[in-house]
């Protein structure tokens, strides 16, 4: 039975098929959400507010001080906006993966495995929550504000200007890869969903602040072990005209797309290994 489930799940795992399935399932959930418009509006506002409070903390901090770790408010807001938008996009796309552990525990993952469409797309789009757009909007607003504040301070060129959208896009992909990696781990450690949170939510919090305030070993860890530094620290420091931290060469700022690709490959392998080792709880 398990063998048959797996082969069924492996049907048509091409990227096109994954995206098509994802779009269809997500569209269905959006239609279902829109049935209760008032409820949707309310949850969108709360999603916006939750992330906004993060930023209120930074505002409160800068009510007390002029700079944090040698970074001005505008520069911290720039870090906040870039990681916030990138994380928001990843959370919008793959936030439902957090439910994997529960689905494995109660056996409802079997239903997905029976359908002849890619498993990852189904799980990722399951209960697609458009309200997570609130986080993206909030991140974008702070990013815009920081860009307005920084318009005279940054040496704008094609390189620095293109770096901003590129780092948000690559950052989102890196966060997504970490989320898939976390979901894969749940095939073995079903109750350990929270560990993934420390890299996604925790990573997002970390990247909101300048690398100068953290212990250098911690910074090295997010450059070389879990490459979150490529989400925004390295490219953002390049845009701001500051040296890269932890003895990283300055060309590393341009390595984000490559790092994102490698992360995706690792996450893809982990996911396959996870699906292969899956054993249903069902009788």
């Amino acid at each position, binding site marked *: 039975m398990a063998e048959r489930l797996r082969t069924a799940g492996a049907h048509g795992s091409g990227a096109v098929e994954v995206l098509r399935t994802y779009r269809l399932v997500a569209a269905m959930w959006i239609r279902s959400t829109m049935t209760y418009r008032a409820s949707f509006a309310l949850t969108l506002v709360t999603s916006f507010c*939750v992330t906004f409070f993060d930023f209120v903390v930074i505002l409160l901090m800068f009510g007390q001080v002029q700079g944090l770790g040698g970074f001005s408010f505008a520069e911290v807001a720039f870090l906040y906006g870039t990681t916030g938008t990138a994380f928001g996009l990843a959370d919008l796309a793959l936030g439902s993966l957090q439910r994997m552990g529960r689905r494995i525990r109660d056996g409802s993952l079997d239903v997905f495995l029976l359908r002849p469409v890619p498993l990852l797309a189904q799980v990722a789009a399951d209960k697609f929550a458009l309200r997570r757009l609130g986080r993206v909007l909030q991140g974008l607003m702070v990013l815009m504000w920081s860009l307005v504040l920084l318009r005279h301070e940054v040496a704008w060129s094609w390189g620095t200007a293109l770096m901003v959208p590129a780092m948000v896009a690559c950052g989102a992909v890196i966060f997504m890869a970490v989320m898939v990696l976390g979901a894969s781990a749940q095939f073995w450690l079903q109750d350990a969903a929270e*560990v993934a949170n420390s890299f996604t939510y925790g990573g997002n919090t970390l990247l909101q602040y300048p690398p100068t305030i953290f212990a250098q070993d911690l910074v090295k860890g997010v450059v070389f072990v879990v490459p979150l530094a490529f989400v925004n620290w390295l490219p953002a420091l390049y845009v701001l005209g500051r040296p890269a931290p932890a003895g990283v060469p300055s060309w590393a700022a341009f390595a984000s797309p490559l790092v994102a690709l490698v992360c995706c490959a690792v996450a893809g392998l982990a996911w396959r290994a996870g699906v292969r080792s899956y054993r249903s709880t069902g009788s």
Partner: protein
Amino acid sequence: MLRLYATVAAGGFRRHSTYRVATLAGLFTNTVFGFVLSYTYIALWAERPALGGYSMADALAYVWIGQALITVCGMMGGGFEDELIERIRTGDIAVDLYRPADLQGWWCAANAGRAAYQLLGRGAVPLLIGAVAFGFTLPAGPAGWAAFLLAVALGSFVSFALWYLVAMSAFWLLDGQGVVQVAWLAGLFFSGMLLPLNVFPGALGELARALPWAALLQVPADVYLGRYGDGWGLVRAYGFQLGWLALLLAAGRAAQAAATRKVVVQGG
């Protein structure tokens, strides 16, 4: 009667102690967040020593107390309200109402057991790790620890009373998500989880320190740091917690009474 609630509490403790991997995962997450927040606080207090009346060692202790108490004092969700709301939504609550025990008392006892386990399983270790890594302020002797534990216990009961009241709304709304999210937001901000309440400026700070969420983290942390002294100051701190506890429990009880009088249980 008391024995019944003790048994329910012990059951809550045992139930949560079976989720060992989840406890370890939570511990790991709390520790990671503890480290990240510690460095931001170090940067902040390096710029403004004695901000909010805290030394840097006090501020670091505050960070790790916050991480240790997250699930104990329910700053980001009480840990039981989802289940209670789900029982109300599905109609399983009828079974609970049939029991020869008070609904609020039953859930309160179960939650106390849960909180006790979380304090041992998820609270103690991050506090120890943080203390070793950052050498922050420790309470003054065994009496200081005892005073802190009492404040934590009271904070955990206030948290129960708050989240129980939130869950009661499901009797009328059925889908409790909206109210839970609003309560979650308020708790996140006004408990001092993000930044100590005495760093909040002016009237916002005054307001935040008077609201019930201050009883969850800010008061226990200040008791820990010895800012209430050891005489009447402490009594005032406990009085603040007890006052909100009584008020919120009464409100929860009133909501429960109103709900059971008019309730139409869901389901067949």
